[in-house]
């Protein structure tokens, strides 16, 4: 179970009315390498991984939900006061006719989330390499969004999220080191 803290992991401030950025951010909301996919991937893999790294998957999965909440806040702030015309200009007309300004787990191109985005092979090394790749892909996505965005406050929050992907990747790489370690093998040289 979880306890909920009624605050964001990092403050989200948006300084420009630019609903197009909301469209880009949806890649990290309901996209293949987004925060929802990350949280569900690790939350599910933790059942079938050696005990030494279950806690890591649990902790990172939990943090990804906190990131999902930050992305949701960004999208909400960027769309809540937008008129239908502004949403159309932002390329969100299709989103509007289906959802009004409600958030939905779509990627930036409007493709809805699917469980096929997340993997669980049951092989600890294969799954951790999958997780490392997922973190690098999320890091890259944040870079591409920062490249497209001129909002300094939004970019500040995105830089925080990108940094966390760097740290997550590091920890998954360490998990591989733990699982491949030979210390217990009683080697005689």
């Amino acid at each position, binding site marked *: 179970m979880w306890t909920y803290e009624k605050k964001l992991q*990092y403050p989200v401030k948006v300084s420009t009315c630019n609903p197009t950025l909301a469209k880009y951010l949806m890649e990290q909301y309901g996209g293949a390498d987004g925060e929802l996919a990350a949280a569900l991937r690790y939350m599910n893999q933790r059942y079938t991984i050696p005990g030494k790294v279950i806690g890591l998957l649990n902790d990172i999965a939990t943090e990804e939900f906190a990131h999902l909440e930050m992305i949701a806040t960004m999208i909400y702030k960027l769309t809540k006061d937008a008129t239908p015309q502004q949403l159309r200009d932002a390329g969100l007309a299709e989103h509007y006719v289906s959802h009004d300004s409600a958030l939905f787990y779509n990627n930036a191109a409007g493709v809805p989330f699917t469980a096929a985005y997340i993997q669980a092979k049951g092989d600890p090394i294969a799954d951790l390499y999958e997780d490392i790749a997922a973190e690098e892909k999320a*890091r*890259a996505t*944040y*870079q591409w969004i*920062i*490249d497209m965005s001129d909002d300094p406050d939004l970019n500040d929050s995105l*830089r*925080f*999220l*990108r*940094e*966390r992907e*760097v*740290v997550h*990747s*590091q920890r998954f*790489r*360490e998990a591989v*080191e733990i699982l491949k370690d030979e210390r217990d093998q009683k080697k005689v040289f």
Partner: protein
Amino acid sequence: MKSQQPFTSAKSYVPPHSPFDPCPPIGRKYYSTPPNLYLGFQPSDLPQFSPADALRKGTLWKVFYDYYDNPYRKGAGKSRD
């Protein structure tokens, strides 16, 4: 801090361009090579940020901090290789 690292956290290359490519050459393409690629298992006793700084930067460990900015924007990417 960055200059003390034995690695750089971004690299670049020039993609090929032919006279028949429709767009003018982009010049350099940049890609990140963040600290997690270089450290292996985290060594002990690494320098830390203060707790307040760590909360803002997203990591407690100075070695893992990797500021990113759009390398294609004018004026950006200056501190890169």
